[in-house]
């Protein structure tokens, strides 16, 4: 099999990909505090989410709700850190299960969304 055309194609592709200067992936949740699905003894004062890409602050948000669907965050969700972090402060949380719901726009204009729960169980 003649591998030359394939090698040339691969080289051309590598060059094109290397000059893709505006490249930025979808923003996926990398980790969170409290941890996704985790259980904490002490009620957290805030939730912090770290994403894989930088976010557009104006179009990225997070809410935290209790099992009754009532908001328990202080409606102050904001992008911080190096632009990959989203945080919101919380009202004092009684024991229970809470859902963190986020929706973000990465700087490459792709929207991603998700949610997870954590438990407060002293």
């Amino acid at each position, binding site marked *: 099999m003649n591998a030359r055309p394939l090698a*040339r*194609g691969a080289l051309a592709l590598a060059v*094109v990909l290397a000059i893709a200067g505006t490249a930025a*992936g979808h923003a996926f949740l*990398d980790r969170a505090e409290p941890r996704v699905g985790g259980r904490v003894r002490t009620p957290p004062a805030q939730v912090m989410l770290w994403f894989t890409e930088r976010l557009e602050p104006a179009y990225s948000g997070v809410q935290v709700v209790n099992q009754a669907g009532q908001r328990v965050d202080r409606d102050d969700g904001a992008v911080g850190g190096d632009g990959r972090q989203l945080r919101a402060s919380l009202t004092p949380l009684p024991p229970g299960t809470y859902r963190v719901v986020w929706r973000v726009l990465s700087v*490459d*204009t792709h929207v991603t969304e998700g*949610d*997870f729960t954590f438990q407060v169980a002293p």
Partner: protein
Amino acid sequence: MRRLVSLALSLLVLTLVTSPAGAHGLAGKRFFPSTLAIEDPFVSDELTLPNVLHIKRPASGDEPATRETEISGELSKRITRFFGISIEGELAHLDPDGAPSKTGFGNLEIGLKWQAFTSAEHEALVSLGLGWEVGGTGRKATEAESFDVVTPSVFFGKGFGDLPDSLWILKPLALTGSAGVAIPTRSRTRTVTVEGDEVEEEIERHPHVLQWGFALQYSLPYLTSFVRDVGLPSFFRRLIPLVEVELQTPLDRGQSGHTTGTVNPGIIWAGRFFQVGVEAVVPINERTGKNVGVRAMLHFFLDDLFPTSFGRPLFGK
């Protein structure tokens, strides 16, 4: 393959000067990776290059057992947010037992796909597609047919993130699949061989073939981002183990019900801009073969590599 790469590059240049975003295989929070054997249920701006299959096919009739290596590439491009086209080319290397090896292109394949239904809440997708294998564009010696084959298909994807919380361990599961009927534009091929005074006529019949299959996948990214962070190292957080089942069932013309196919257990690693995958290819019966093959794929997310140009639909957002 060179033609395919040239076409890809031409399209790139053309669209770099146009504008308008969207997503790869997303339904709500579910990311469906591109599977190696089963066609994806979503439209996308993505490039597979290469997808390599190596397997030994069994002897059939006068044909000896053959070691086969296929190297293919596919470019998928969204025209609108939910409508896309694809073009696929393949280079085949056949190495028959006791005979000289042959190398040549397969027929060009063009696909249209409409993502007709998307449910973010239920992580579900349904698409309708039409594939067209363009007869005569490949090399006959490497088994490219001289006639066209048209394949209307339905594709689906379903994530199980909507299961009750008590079944949290199953939420990262997802199933994708497809079913279509390959309709050849010629019912049979007649071959006449003259040897001395003897004239031999051979008729090969081309049945309609049900092409169906599914991929069952367990997404560790989904587990750690949406269900439970179990503290996996970052490399493992991007792994998606899967099993693909790819089947072909002739429906008529004397071959009805003679199903062939493979079961392909493997794994995909999905990064920011590309994914890589590798699978074993295990024949389901002796008709398909006795030897285990291997398939590997490198796949680029053009919507992330070129978010403001080639990675967007040509029209709309």
